[in-house]
């Protein structure tokens, strides 16, 4: 059975020194319960693979504040003072990837590919030490797959086989990471019985998910931008 009681049970086997992928773009679509449980666990020396690794002191930033992270593989650290400070102080190693490269490296990891050639980063610091190849007259550089020990993902609806359906822009890196780890943990807003999800509506087939549990989510807003209705 893939269904587990809570995040604590879902994270069994996650130990210090491991690599962990965490879905989410900023604070949107984060596996909030897994992050919270990890922050309380005392596990350290983690390599975190995530687009932002937290933001505004929240989300994965809690792990940074607890000094549980030794390396971050991400694409953007703006708006994340914890990471910027520890990076500049040399306390955390940061590997910056172009966002599309990060996504595709994870996809490659899950899809059984060794890597891929991309034009992104040619002629920049990203190309340092990487193989260049001219293909049909254009220069590409080689980017290697990314895998992890654990992937922590979040979806709106999941069934007991691990089939997942995402909601709005909470999808982002979640389905990609779910494919690329030795153990994939999914926390879902709503856990349903097998057969309740229409097969056409399943965004990620359950074979990628090892453990699943239902959890409530705060869905914090980073930048609350609204407009006002004009008076009629």
């Amino acid at each position, binding site marked *: 059975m893939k269904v587990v009681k809570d995040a604590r049970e879902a994270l069994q086997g996650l130990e210090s020194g491991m690599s962990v992928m965490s879905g989410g*773009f*900023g*604070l*949107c*679509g984060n596996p909030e319960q897994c992050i919270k449980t990890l922050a309380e666990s005392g596990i350290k020396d983690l390599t975190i693979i995530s*687009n932002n690794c937290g*933001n505004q002191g929240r989300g994965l930033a809690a792990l940074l504040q607890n000094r549980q992270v030794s390396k971050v593989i*991400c*694409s*953007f*650290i*703006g*708006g994340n003072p914890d990471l*910027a400070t520890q*990076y*500049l102080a040399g306390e955390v190693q940061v590997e*910056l990837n*172009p*966002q*599309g*490269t*990060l*996504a*595709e490296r*994870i*996809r490659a990891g899950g899809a059984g590919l060794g890597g891929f050639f*991309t*034009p*992104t*980063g*040619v*002629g*920049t*610091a*990203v190309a340092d030490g990487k193989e260049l190849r001219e293909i049909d007259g254009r220069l590409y550089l080689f980017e290697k797959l990314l895998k992890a020990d654990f992937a922590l993902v979040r979806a709106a609806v999941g069934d007991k086989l691990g089939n997942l359906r*995402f*909601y*709005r*822009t*909470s*999808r*982002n*890196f*979640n*389905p*990609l990471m779910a494919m690329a780890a030795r153990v994939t943990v999914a926390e879902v807003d709503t856990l349903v019985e097998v057969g309740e999800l229409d097969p056409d509506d399943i965004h990620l087939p359950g074979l990628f998910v090892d453990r699943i549990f239902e959890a409530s989510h705060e*869905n*914090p*807003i*980073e*930048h*609350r*931008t*609204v*407009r*006002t*209705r004009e008076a009629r």
Partner: protein
Amino acid sequence: MSWSREEQARRAGAELKDGDIVNLGIGLPTEVANYVPRGIQVMFHSENGLLGMGPFPYEDELDPQIINAGKQTVTLAPGASLFDSALSFAMIRGGHVDVAILGGLEVAQNGDLANWMIPGKMVTGMGGAMDLAGGAKKTLVMQTHTSKTGESKLMDRLSLPPTALGCVNRVITELGVFDCCGDHFLCLELAPGVSREEAVARTKGELRFAG
């Protein structure tokens, strides 16, 4: 006299064509969404996984799980679609996005763009900028013409680490509109009250004028 930020955004909006798929960078480029010319339909792509981004929500339709790449709450326009980050960047790298409008720290006359770091001062990471600058069919940059200390940001060659090479087609600053032509910038338009002499004096690259 020069253009205000709003006027810069309006001028950038005038670059859009009916049917364009458009990606707007964080900051000033985001404002361009408010200045799509009348009678023109475009679709905004947001690299976190949304094609068909609508305006900011009214208070009663606010949804924390609908955000743009700047992590601002937005809405879904009619015809919107949602997808994962790999598919989103396949759209970008694959040349399926017509226009990227990005912020810049420096642009060189050969189209090189720097906008992701200042050594020793600022590290934010490149996010999606490297993919966008190189992948969109057309790349427009919106930036100030000079730094706060008066240094030109339109360069003969970049002084900052590049984001992508040879990618910028056009730069819109508070002084005017400039095309990257390889060995020079071509000024297509000056903001009201800006003289050719001023534009030349504030441009480090070679500046030529149309007409």
